[in-house]
């Protein structure tokens, strides 16, 4: 007898496909926000499934801080070619050059918050009415309150206290011109679900996720990669370690962990034993207790 129920990964997949198709049906000009990290790669993979045998019917958009891992850019360009979709790049460097934003100063300066302006500018100039992201509710406490369809006003701002109620699987994407939505098809996935699914589907991911030898320094309790942007302090020393990254952000703020996990199977095993959250190595979240909420309100991913 056949079983008439889905296992949890199939159910999550089906839910994400449903959300992606709703986005396509309800909006005129959606994009997938593509960072080159595993979550946006997963969303892209699910979009491939949602519209098969058609191509993904919308572009990928990358907010390029200029502080990338070279591997990420290579991966991005390869996947664009493979899928035959358009790539839109919003450049933080251009925003700086145009005087729209100024570089942060001080010891832990990053371009993390600068992305918000570039992202909102790119959304406006490309007349995007829905930006699909790989945000997950298990990632962070402010993200736990996100909707699948999340409204942004004409300043690109999120108002967490006045969110539209979202019942059953009925999504209300109605909006005025100039406003836009963020859609989160993998809201209900956990880090573990993502890895189990990547392994099951054998999805290609950047080499950075696998254990590899790399020059790093020890800073804020994690291994920060050496790069042209790194400013060493006196006490800091560059060493070579076998590391891998659990999440990928800017090369300046993404900390690696020491690991020997060089296959998907080993990564899944390693992640299942982890006692720290994956964003624990992201210094952008450590600035204050409500760092994510504050950035999200302004229009962050």
């Amino acid at each position, binding site marked *: 007898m056949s079983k*008439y129920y889905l296992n*949890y990964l199939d159910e999550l997949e089906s839910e994400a496909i449903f959300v992606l198709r709703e986005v396509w049906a309800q909006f005129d000009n959606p994009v997938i926000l593509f960072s080159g990290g595993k979550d946006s790669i997963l969303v892209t993979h699910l979009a491939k499934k949602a519209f098969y045998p058609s*191509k993904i019917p919308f572009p990928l958009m990358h907010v390029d801080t200029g502080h990338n891992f070279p591997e990420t850019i290579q991966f991005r360009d390869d996947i664009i070619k493979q899928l035959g979709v358009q790539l839109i790049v919003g450049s933080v460097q251009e925003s700086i050059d145009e005087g729209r934003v100024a570089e942060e100063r001080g010891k832990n300066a990053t371009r993390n918050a600068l992305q918000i302006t570039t992202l909102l500018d790119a959304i406006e100039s490309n007349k995007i009415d829905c930006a699909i992201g790989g945000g997950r509710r*298990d990632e962070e406490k*402010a993200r736990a309150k996100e909707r699948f369809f999340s409204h942004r006003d004409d300043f690109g701002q999120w108002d967490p206290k006045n969110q539209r*109620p979202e019942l059953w699987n*009925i999504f*209300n994407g109605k909006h005025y011109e100039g406003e836009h939505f963020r859609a989160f098809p993998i809201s209900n996935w*956990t880090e573990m679900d993502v890895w189990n699914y990547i392994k099951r589907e054998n999805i290609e991911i950047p080499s950075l996720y696998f254990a590899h030898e790399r020059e790093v320094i020890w800073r804020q309790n994690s291994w920060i990669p050496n790069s042209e942007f790194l400013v060493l302090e006196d006490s800091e020393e560059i060493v070579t370690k076998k590391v891998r990254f659990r999440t990928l952000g800017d090369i300046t703020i993404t900390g690696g962990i020491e690991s020997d996990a060089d296959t998907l199977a080993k990564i899944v095993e390693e992640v299942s034993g982890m006692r720290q959250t994956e964003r624990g190595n992201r210094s952008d979240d450590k600035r204050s207790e409500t760092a994510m909420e504050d950035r999200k309100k302004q229009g962050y991913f």
Partner: protein
Amino acid sequence: MLDNNQLLRFTTAGSVDDGKSTLIGRLLYDSKSIFEDQLEAIENTSKKKGHDGVDLALFTDGLRDEREQGITIDVAYRYFTTPKRKFIIADTPGHIQYTRNMVTGASTANAAIILVDARHGVIEQTRRHSFIASLLQIPHVIVCINKMDLVDYSEEAYNKVIEQFEEFSSKMLVKDIRFIPISALKGDNVVNRSENMNWYQGAPLLHTLETLHISSDINKVDARFPVQTVLRPQSEGFIDYRGYAGRVAGGVFRKGDQITVLPSGFTSSIKTIDTFDGEVEEAFAPMSVAITLEDDIDVSRGDMIVRSNNKPNTAQDLEVMLCWLHDNSAKPRAKYSIQHTSNDQKAMIKEVIYKIDINTLERITDDSELHMNDICKVKIRTTKPLMIDSYRENRTTGSIILVDDNTNETVAAGMVI
């Protein structure tokens, strides 16, 4: 066998002092779903606020205002996994002014946990939460009689609550109600079996959640396929391909089935059921697939494909249980957009038949104004027919939302009677 593990969604409604946060904290902590850095962050905040020990409520509150005020305002989703199942908790506030958030959390739940303080028994809030679980047709209700440690783990206290509960719940539509005596604080019967209540023969809460039979929670009889979008690749190998993309909302579709497209009434049969991973012989709820038909007929978003021998009602006049969700009250005879599956039409609230006093559960017939959090029975007229089942038969094809065209806000959620 990880491959067969199912996903169970449950909701917990309650306020801070009835132990809801402690219970969730206990489930997450004992199932090892709280990470060290999260625990550390909570410990630090607890210290800063001068609390004794770790305040687990902080773990379940997210937004700045919630942390400052120490209350839950919005629905928060929490996740944990055991070797048997993946769980999604819709953690909702319990106070009457947040009824709409409870309704939201309940809308997708397989199970509801209702907390009763063993010292106080069934109170107004218990009635309200149970009513919402029944209204939203949550298939399984687990009444946790909490704080058993404060009544000396007495069987008598437990039985008294059951008696009170059964007295008022006889009219409710929940098929499966269970009772578990627990102490969330001490951990009795949450994850581990209590050694203090040998008189209780049932399973602890987590084991109950792990083994609830949920495969039949979704309607597997009446085949319903709301079309979300049409896939027309027009690329090599797929020049004439027309696939109707959607998520099965009920029943099972098989290759070769005789189908009818509603509302047009055109008939055809299923040629293929496609997914990225290849053709499948059958598709059941809640699978996302693309269906191709033998005949070239006009099908578009908002249409519903059903088996020809089992059709939903095609209706413009609906009786609906409505929960008003918005600050702006309902305008008499005003028009709203109505969203039902992938269908989007206009509708008018023609008549408020009665409102329900959510605390006494009595009907109010002399007040037809609809304010935030009101629950009422109404008559709705739509401009075009909807293909509906009763909510009791199918939570997907029996539910609607109303959207205010002036603000684009979702203002009401409804269940078709």
